[in-house]
């Protein structure tokens, strides 16, 4: 019974979010064709007459009543069809996949690293609170983490890309290169990945580290730690089995909450390194009022967040069996 209500809850959330994804972009000022009439960039003003507009609206099915558009959208979704992007003039799914693979690579790598580093360093800090190591770590991590990521990115580019010439300064791959083995290509991709991933790690590690440290500090003061020590258990054992397990609860929540942001929030890093990704795509989709693309991108983010919550729920039960019985 409990499982069914839970699943029903997820379905309801997805439906509500889908409706929001559909209606919100349409409420914004401007329409998906206004980019045609000449954004004040270096361009010609094109005069879009009513007839042409009507043709375009009909072509993209935007002339139908809103409710019918909504039902069409839902039906297409059921068939796995995300529609055709108006600005990019390509299937939304192709555009999303093209970008998502890079975002996953970048964000996945960075998240794994900053999660583990943050947790480990936070634990080390809290265990010997006020010690030299704690103060040093705290000062160091907080100061590097507070640098804006675009600034840090530029710094990396100038230092490691231009002065030391260790890493490429833009893109995700060396353009115009054909490797004989996949290993060469993989190495190339990872060389391009390193600076942007490092930037993301530094930008995000502060939050995880601080939360872990605080949460650990709370746990260290608990009676059961004292009991464990009184039992004569080894320090390392107490740290792992008693303290860390309890201290990890808030981290799980934090990471689940961050998933959506991780997909869309890399826009600065993407811009600085000209790294292909979903962040800039979302920005463009909003700028050009590209309804189908906006819907598709938001859908992905929504699903990612819901999936992350689902996983967090499961992990929670393992971390804190009490949750299950409540």
């Amino acid at each position, binding site marked *: 019974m409990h499982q069914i209500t839970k699943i029903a809850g997820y379905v309801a959330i997805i439906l509500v979010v889908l409706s929001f994804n559909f209606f919100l972009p349409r409420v914004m000022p401007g329409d998906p064709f*206004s980019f045609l009439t000449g954004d*004040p960039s270096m361009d010609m003003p094109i005069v879009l007459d009513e007839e042409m507009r009507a043709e375009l609206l009909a072509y993209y099915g935007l002339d139908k009543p809103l409710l019918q558009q909504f039902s069409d959208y839902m039906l297409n979704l059921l068939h796995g069809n995300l529609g055709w992007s108006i600005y990019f003039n390509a299937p939304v799914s192709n555009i999303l996949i093209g970008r998502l693979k890079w975002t996953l690579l970048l964000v996945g790598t960075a998240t794994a690293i900053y999660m583990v580093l943050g947790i480990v360093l936070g634990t080390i800090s809290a265990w010997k609170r006020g010690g030299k190591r704690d103060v040093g770590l705290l000062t160091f991590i907080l100061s590097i983490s507070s640098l804006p990521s675009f600034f840090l990115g530029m710094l990396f580019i100038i230092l490691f890309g231009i002065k030391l010439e260790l890493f490429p300064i833009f893109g995700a791959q060396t353009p*115009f290169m054909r*490797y004989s083995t996949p290993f060469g290509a993989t190495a190339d991709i990872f060389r391009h990945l390193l600076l942007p991933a490092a930037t993301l790690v530094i930008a995000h590690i502060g939050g995880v580290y601080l939360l872990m440290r605080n949460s650990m500090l709370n746990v260290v003061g608990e009676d059961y730690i004292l009991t464990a020590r009184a039992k004569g258990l080894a320090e390392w054992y107490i740290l792992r089995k008693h303290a860390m397990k309890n201290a990890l609860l808030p981290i799980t929540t934090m990471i689940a909450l961050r998933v959506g942001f991780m997909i869309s929030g890399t826009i600065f890093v993407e811009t600085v390194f000209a790294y292909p990704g979903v962040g800039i795509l979302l920005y463009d989709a909003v700028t050009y009022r590209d309804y189908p693309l906006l819907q598709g991108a938001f859908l992905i983010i929504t699903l990612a967040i819901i999936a992350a919550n689902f996983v967090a729920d499961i992990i929670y039960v393992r971390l804190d069996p009490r949750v299950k019985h409540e």
Partner: protein
Amino acid sequence: MNKIIAMLSIAILLCSAFSGMAIAKEDSGMADVTAASAGEKVVKISGDDWGYSTPFAHYPRGPGYIRMSFIFDTLTWKDKNGVIPWLADSWSSSYDAKTWTFYLHRGVKWSDGEPFTADDVKFTFDYTKEHPQKWYKAKEIDHVAVLDPYTVEIHLKESRPTFIEDVTGSVPIIPEHIWADITDPNKFRGDEAVTGTGPLKLVEYVPEQGYYEYGANTKCFKGKSLIDRFISMEVSDDALALETGDIDATSFWGKEIVAKEEFENNPNFEIITGPSFWVRKLYFNCEKYPTNNKTFRHALAYGIDRKKLVEQVMLGGARVANTGIIHPDSPWYKHGLPGYKYNTTKANEILDSLGFIDTDDNEVRNYPGGGDIEFTLFTNTKDEANFIHDNLEVIGIKTEVKVMSWKELDPILKNGEFYIAISGHGGIVQPRTLYTFYSYQNDEYDEIYKKQLRTMDEDVRKELVGELQTIIADDLPVYTLYHPLMWAVYNPDKLDTWFYTKGGVAVGIPIAQNKLIFLFDAWRYDADEDGIIDKSEVIDAIQDYFDGRITKGQAIEVVKLYFL
């Protein structure tokens, strides 16, 4: 517990590793060597994704058209001096400019080997009527008649003296044998879709990296391209990428003059300057009091120091605008229009005479019936607006700057919900940009505008277009502020043929990427540009031949010009 974290992070790491491997696998493959080897001449530029390079799929922006134009040709084209024959060797029109006859170049082949004929031209216009191209709808075409495989007659519904500049110079011709069966050209992709007659052909397109790779079209009727590969890709910072050699050419404009100046004393780079055919202007609402008063508009114009604006806000990367809108480098430009030289005394005098006097001593002028003269200054560029805000403050007009995105600004202008606003647009090389105003009604103006469209005689038409500019400069429905400058910075060792097209490429695209840069042109040896190839210039060509820079045939072309 630790197991869970460890497993989770390993899972994520594996996920990303696989994603990386998968991408890598996709991209490696048949070709075993790095393509840049084998002594190929490769030229790389910076640029974003501008859509697939067909006339129906590219994004409707200048750079999108430019990339498409490398592959698809038009009947006529433009070089740095103006219109030149292209797919059509010559053309003529009936006395009423309703029937246009084109004599096509013989022996032109599509990149798949099929011959190009008059049928393709007819097909293009017929097909475009049904399926509009990104920039062209073929609405004015009545019908197209094929007289013989190399002669085609285009019949228009109404006379159109500007048919060459408006249409044939920008409408790409598509191959009938490929497009005839395509019902939705918008979604047509693949090698077939990019079969053209132009100097390049599309080899690879990766939208998410803005990556375009073009190879030489060996069947191009204008000869083989000077370079083997042309690449355009997204970079993080154009100036940095140019300096590190990741790209060989890029373009800057307006305030980016600062980036351009970095390359001025660098012997490895050359710089050319061009007009952007762009204008930033101050819009007045001509339907609302007090901006509907022409004299009042004049007062504001005298109160704005455009010269200082160009120096301080644009950092010198622009020129003070023609008050008649049309760019000074355009053949339609009207000389000697009033410039409203900055003069606060005059501005104050006019405002006093209108009865707008500061009666309550708060440094802001009042309406004759009381109340401060105060406007919201809508804009999408903060710096210019703040400058104008300060300028107007001096003459007792209070403004509140409101910065917003273009999306939000556009409807405000269209609906006339403003008194003054700043916005801008490009394309001011063509008279057709003279009709884009918000909230301005002038029957005489509209009459002249329509008349010039129908006028056959170019001199008469120029006069009419001049009259339009005179009316704008006097009536001031908009007060033009500046025209930004543009620069192409390039490494001449890679390619040194860059130039700015007269009147812009095709419809007036201001960038220096005309496909002519890929083609050999014997006239480039006319170093002193006197229209004659002299002895020393022939020697240059022969020297280049011995150095392996040009082929024997190309050297002979230069020699031929010498004997002409």
